[in-house]
């Protein structure tokens, strides 16, 4: 792969906005994605462990974390769609080379996710079918590993042709994995899974601290486990992050920044763990989101460096300002975001007591506004279409 060939692989249509916007959206939505999927994996592992323990607290914790895992998986998958979009806009040469090289795994990815999710649901509804849970875990880990390999393979343009056609003979079956780095995978998945689990458990203890039907002893137990998870996450991320630094990091000339980030994250959470309390859960969450963003930026920097050596810069991606599509996006966001907030408010209110609870009148009014916004969107959508039709009549 020559630099010219790599650049020539970019889509000739160019991007529909300045590439920096796509890149920012890519990193930010990746952070949301990884937050939820690592929560899913961490809580599933905790749930499966809890099912194995006899103590009542563990059994209860298992129930909580398995339910959390189900919801986090659904949201994690949904959040994954956004970075998936933006990575294809500015990194199409790397992304599509990876997806075709690993064609079989790319295709099996979603069936694995969907089945994993379904099994997770069965585990949740039946409560104690641990076997089903292990299958779900295996499938979700396979999915995570596939994602990891797709992201990793994109970093090595100089190896693509040899991977595709060893000895000059193309292998078009797509059955092999390329570009993976196990320390990176372990740090980003298992390390962050423990951290996410810790943060979510703290949030749980915080949310239920005022509910009389939830025993204080259980909440204290949860807080203790949260601290343990944070400490474990710090150790895993630190150890495997260093290993990542000295393997892939060194290959790409980035050993130092990777090692620094690994040590900072590990240090921060190792020191924070004993002080992490239910009352301060929101602070821990904020700290953690900051850390996830830092790691997300590190990943992105790594990709820019690796491809930059081949003369590829995402920021030099040709683009036009495609106003029609921006209008469509912004208008949809204006309708959808308030509605999403409203749904969260309803859920929040309904969990305040054992019997449920109604949202405040203010929230209800907000809900009515939400419905009007949605109807307004439909009008906008149809109206815009009619406008386009009429404008094209004359052509």
């Amino acid at each position, binding site marked *: 792969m020559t630099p010219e*060939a790599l650049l020539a692989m970019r889509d000739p249509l160019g991007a529909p906005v300045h590439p920096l916007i796509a890149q920012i959206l890519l990193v930010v939505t990746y952070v949301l994605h990884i937050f939820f999927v690592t929560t899913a994996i961490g809580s599933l592992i905790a749930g499966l462990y809890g099912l194995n323990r006899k103590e009542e607290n563990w059994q209860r914790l298992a129930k909580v974390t398995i339910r959390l895992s189900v919801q986090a998986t659904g949201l994690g998958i949904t959040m994954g769609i956004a970075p998936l979009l933006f990575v294809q*806009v500015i990194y199409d040469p790397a992304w599509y080379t990876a997806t075709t090289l690993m064609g079989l795994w790319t295709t099996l990815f979603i069936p694995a996710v969907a089945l994993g999710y379904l099994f997770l649901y069965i585990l949740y509804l039946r409560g104690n079918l641990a076997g089903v849970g292990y299958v779900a875990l295996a499938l979700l880990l396979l999915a995570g590993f596939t994602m990891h390999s797709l992201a990793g393979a994109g970093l090595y343009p100089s190896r693509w042709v040899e991977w595709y056609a060893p000895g000059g003979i193309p292998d078009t079956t797509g059955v092999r994995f390329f570009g993976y780095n196990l320390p990176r995978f372990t740090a980003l998945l298992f390390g962050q899974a423990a951290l996410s689990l810790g943060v979510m458990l703290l949030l749980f203890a915080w949310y239920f601290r005022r509910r009389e039907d939830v025993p204080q002893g259980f909440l204290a137990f949860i807080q203790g486990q949260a601290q343990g998870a944070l400490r474990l996450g710090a150790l895993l991320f630190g150890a495997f992050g260093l290993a990542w630094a000295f393997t892939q990091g060194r290959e790409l000339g980035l050993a130092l920044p990777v090692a620094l980030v690994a040590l900072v994250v590990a240090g921060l959470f190792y020191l924070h763990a004993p002080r992490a309390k239910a009352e301060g859960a929101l602070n821990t969450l904020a700290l953690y989101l900051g850390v996830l963003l830092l790691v997300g930026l590190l990943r992105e920097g790594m990709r820019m460096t690796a491809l930059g050596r081949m003369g590829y810069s995402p920021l030099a991606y040709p683009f036009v300002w495609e106003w029609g599509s921006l209008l469509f996006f912004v208008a949809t966001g204006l309708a959808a975001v308030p509605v999403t907030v409203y*749904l969260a408010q309803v859920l929040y209110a309904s969990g305040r007591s054992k019997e449920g609870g109604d949202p405040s009148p203010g929230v209800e009014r907000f809900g009515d506004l939400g419905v009007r916004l949605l109807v307004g969107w439909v009008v906008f959508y149809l109206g815009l279409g009619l406008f386009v039709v009429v404008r*094209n009549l004359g052509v």
Partner: protein
Amino acid sequence: MYPVWEGVILHSAFIVALVAVAHVLFSHVTVAATWFNWWVERKALAEGKPYLYDYLKASALRLLMFAYTLGAMFGVGIWFSVTASNPRGISTLIHNFVFYWAAEWFWFIIDVFGIAVYYYTFGRVNPKTHARIGLILALAATGTLAIIVGILGFKLSPGHWLQTGHSLDGFYNPTFWPMLFARFALMFALTALYALLVASSLPKNHPARAEVVPLAGKVGLVGLAVGVALVLFWYVPSLPEHARTLLGLPQVVQKVFYIKMALGVAAVALTLLLALLAPQLAVQRGVVYLAFLLAFLGLFGAERTREAIRKPDIILGYMASNQIIQVDFAPRGVKAEVSRLNQEGVLKSLPFAVAPGAKVAGPAGARDPVEAGRTLVVLQCSSCHTVSKNTALLGGMRNLAAMFHRRGMTEAPQIRAYLETIGGFPYMHPVVGTAEERDYMAQYLERLVKEFFPQASAGR
């Protein structure tokens, strides 16, 4: 141009089709079910029929478990399977419509989050709030359908986009309106089947059964009739001329496609009639599953037809199914790739067009002609044809070996001559590459025929 993924055992295009149809079935059920349930919930409230909530709960749980896990996921699954099988096609869509998809993503979030909120707040918030969540779900689910219709239709009828390059022109394309309304109507037929299935899970004498089953029959039949009429009298006439021509070519759309579609429609119609006339019969699980199965077949026929009548292009009038850009596209200064590939050669131009010795300059002697031919055939033909034993389960898909064998062309010179003529078919583009490269292709194809039909060479 990217590496080629041919598929394993099954041809990649066939895998895409399976995933796609599964998705269409589930997602259409979901979208209409949100409206149906909203209506039932209003009925429960307005007419004071709390027992209808049992139906709603049963429906929501199944939606949550199956429609969202399997259905919505497989939508993303189509995407993954096409990024593996036709990356430049999906890239064109992404670079045009990324923000439409990103807009759809907002609706996904509401769908996935909302159905969970909907399910967990049954009886935990006041009924009015709950019904509002139902309405929000219905509107958001409709939003996802509304957006994907524009992107899907674009592939078959890019319309003014070809001149202006504006995404809005591509989105609100000539088949956009009929497809929007036809899909919206047809999905109620599928949802009605789903409602029967849910009703059948309630106890035999549950009062909700008597309400829901006939309602499903009515709604479904109206949806089916309106939808089929829209397809026949609005959608088909608004297809580009090329597509309408292909509709009539049995090489492109085999008769069995039409049979499948008719069977699907008939089975659904009969089941829904049954729901009206003999509700007890219509909630027999066997009946409903059979109807679903035939509906699946019908959808398979319909979606495959929609994909087939676009041949030989992935984006009609812009990019061929084999990902080669066919025309200049002035709005973005894109140049057609065909002439360059014909002059400079595919092996020289494309980074993944490799074969032993292929990049070596000079006389062809340095190259392995058959392997070079394989690379070229894989690049140009494999998006629609089985071109190796890798993807030959049950004979493969439009297997080239079988096609040449049937025509009695088993030797390279005959095949070589034939290659020059395929551009004459309305559903194929001319082969690209230098004269030498076309020789290589013929040599590989000869080997392929002989791999599949060893007796062909022995007999001559």
